[in-house]
């Protein structure tokens, strides 16, 4: 092992390294997604030495912007997009989208930016005693994150005709819709395929909004670097170690070690618990890896008589909180045409006929503010296993949301609506939609997806109830912090990118102050020792 990272670039590909390394820094960060990138940038800007270790590859934006959706899925999505939460009991199988690259899942979001709703903050403060996580306490962090990501409301002219159709239906039904805010500044062209990277480079994912500043301030980022263990010394975190990943099959190649007094785990809700379990944490509270929330989501496709051509416009531009008390958020959504085609029902000629009707189709989605019920554990392979037991209340909300979306579609003049119930015939009127909601069906027939797994290492004010404190430090191992979606104490009911980044910003600011204080104390101590030696 060399005593420095043996490459000159700020972002080093671990695959290209001919040897491992053993380096020292102030903060070792595991993961370069929404949480890790924010911490890296803010700590490096504060003058601290930062090393970021990312399991996935580094792909430059000018390269991934040219990829087709299937290339993005295979090369940027964890498990090539085939990751699934296994439904336990009366629960759908839920397809999970996670990123695995420098920039993490921020490369694959729709760019939607919400703050945590006030009532969720209120619950955290009032019911969970998390006074440091109030809306006011996170205010500066929200502002910082939104400024850097150029968060703006999507202007009405960027709405697709697909969205306009559902707006028309919502208006007819008296459902209030609002413009969504996204991290695309004024650059969005309306290519409607943000989840597979933005071909226009408009989306301010963290690889363009935060990591360049981190590297400009001296942070080193190593991609294809799998951290396997947190080093523990004298009862506190002292760094991390792992292996570089090389070859086509990402096999382990050279070992590395990063020694640091402070370690931030930002591997995401499914992978942070694995790292903590391997470090021997999580036994005291029994909370680690449990209570995972997902925001399960469904969509409907509505076919109209007139052409819609929904792919011209922003992927997501409006939402509704009309059903907030039911835990349902309605969200406009579209996708790449081949992805929408793949989701059309039927096999053979029936399927092909429906695919040909795509220009006449509009889509809309709904997301559930779920109770949780997910559990993450290690598997025999490298990836975790995720089980999810959906609360009966959430399942009925999921089904109700499809009825609401169908009603909006029919109010806008749709001929037929394809719901997310697999194998169900298209519905042609509201009586059939309501009948489908009432029908006693196997929950696994509901095609369900989730983009925001949260809460596997939740924050608490007591070691018996959580894994980290309100500043992200683990109760069981001083010097080890968690700064990703896993620390959110409950489901939040909104897209999680800004919440995760804001929580990470708070943690980084606090840690930066602590490191600065430690450095000042060390400098004073060294000065005193030197003066004593000179005096002697």
């Amino acid at each position, binding site marked *: 092992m060399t005593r420095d990272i043996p490459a000159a670039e700020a972002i080093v590909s671990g695959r290209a390294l001919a040897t491992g390394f053993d380096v020292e820094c102030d903060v070792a960060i595991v993961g370069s997604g929404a949480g890790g990138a924010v911490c890296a940038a803010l700590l490096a800007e504060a003058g601290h030495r930062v090393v970021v270790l990312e399991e996935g590859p580094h792909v430059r934006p000018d390269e991934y912007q*040219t*990829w*087709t*959706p*299937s*290339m993005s*899925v*295979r*090369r940027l999505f964890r*498990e*090539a*997009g*085939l990751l699934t939460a296994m439904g336990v009991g009366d629960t759908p*199988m839920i397809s999970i989208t996670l990123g695995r690259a420098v920039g993490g899942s921020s490369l694959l979001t729709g760019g939607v930016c919400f703050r945590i709703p006030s009532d969720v903050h209120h619950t955290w403060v009032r019911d969970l005693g998390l006074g440091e996580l109030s809306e006011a306490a996170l205010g500066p962090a929200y502002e910082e994150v939104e400024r850097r990501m150029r968060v703006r409301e999507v202007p009405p*002219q*960027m709405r697709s005709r697909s969205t306009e159709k559902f707006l028309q239906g919502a208006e007819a039904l008296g459902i209030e819709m609002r413009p969504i805010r996204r991290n695309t500044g*004024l*650059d969005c*062209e*309306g*290519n409607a*395929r943000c989840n597979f990277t933005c*071909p*226009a*480079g*408009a989306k301010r994912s963290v690889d363009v909004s935060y990591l360049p500043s981190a590297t400009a301030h001296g942070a080193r980022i190593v991609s294809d670097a799998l951290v396997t263990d947190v080093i523990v010394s004298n009862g506190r975190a002292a760094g991390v170690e792992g292996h570089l990943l090389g070859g*086509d*099959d990402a096999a382990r190649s050279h070992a590395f070690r990063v020694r640091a007094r402070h370690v931030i785990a930002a591997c995401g809700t499914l992978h942070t618990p694995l790292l903590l379990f391997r470090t021997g944490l999580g036994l005291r509270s029994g909370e680690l890896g449990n209570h995972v929330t997902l925001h399960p989501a469904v969509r409907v496709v509505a076919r109209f008589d007139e052409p819609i*051509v929904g*792919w*011209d416009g922003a992927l997501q531009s409006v939402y509704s909180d009309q059903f907030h008390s039911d835990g349902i958020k309605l969200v406009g959504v579209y996708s*790449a*045409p*081949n*992805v*929408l*085609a*793949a989701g059309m029902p*039927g*096999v*053979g*000629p029936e399927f*092909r006929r429906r*695919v*040909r009707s*795509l*220009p006449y189709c509009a889509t809309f989605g709904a997301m559930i503010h779920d109770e949780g019920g997910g559990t993450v554990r290690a*598997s025999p*392979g*490298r*990836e975790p*296993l995720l089980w999810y037991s959906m609360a009966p209340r959430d399942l009925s909300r999921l089904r109700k949301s499809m009825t609401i979306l169908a009603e909006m579609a029919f109010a806008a003049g749709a001929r037929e609506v394809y719901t997310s119930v*697999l*194998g169900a015939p298209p519905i042609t009127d509201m009586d059939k939609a309501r009948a489908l909601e009432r029908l006693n*069906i*196997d*929950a*696994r027939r*509901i*095609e369900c997806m989730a983009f925001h797994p949260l809460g596997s290492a939740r924050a608490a004010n007591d070691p018996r109830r959580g894994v980290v404190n309100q500043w992200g430090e683990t109760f069981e191992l001083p010097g080890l912090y968690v700064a990703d979606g896993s620390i959110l104490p409950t489901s939040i009911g909104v897209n999680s990118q800004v919440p995760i980044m804001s929580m990470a910003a708070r943690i980084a600011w606090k840690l930066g102050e602590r490191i600065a204080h430690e450095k000042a104390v060390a400098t004073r101590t060294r000065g005193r020792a030197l003066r004593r030696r000179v005096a002697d």
Partner: protein
Amino acid sequence: MSEHLSAAHKADETNAGFRRGLSPRAERVAASAMEAILADEDERGNLIPGSPEACARAVRWLSRSAGHSSSNIRFGYGLLTWLLQLLPLFMIGVPSRMTELSLGDRIRYLTALETSRYGLLSMLLLAFKVPMSIVAFEEGAELSSTGFDRPSTASRRSLMWAEAPPANAPNTAGGVS
């Protein structure tokens, strides 16, 4: 199978390598399913299987994706292809493996899976249909059949510009004018 790949996919494989994640048997099962999923009717109403190019592209993508994924995924798809192969007897009462069914029977079988009252059977079809269809409909005649009016799924929206944007155009389109 690689002779059916488009230039874009060949370039991708050249850059990123190919590691098979499905066995040849599993690939044959996936290809047989895809042929039925993509089947269409000609002008006379006769069934025609999905195009070899689209099926090959889709199966190769699935195999390659499994190859670059964890052992959980490879094991899972190995198991699913066995099930897909062996269930025709239970679903449509034909004592045959799926790959040996006629095209019409395969469509009938896969439709029975999709419409089954048991969700896990519907999910079995979905596990192959969705990922492979994403690839199948990504280019060529299959993409054209979606009505998509851009040359590729990676193309930028052309309506934003009075004429084609220059190669070095800045990303400053502020909205639809």
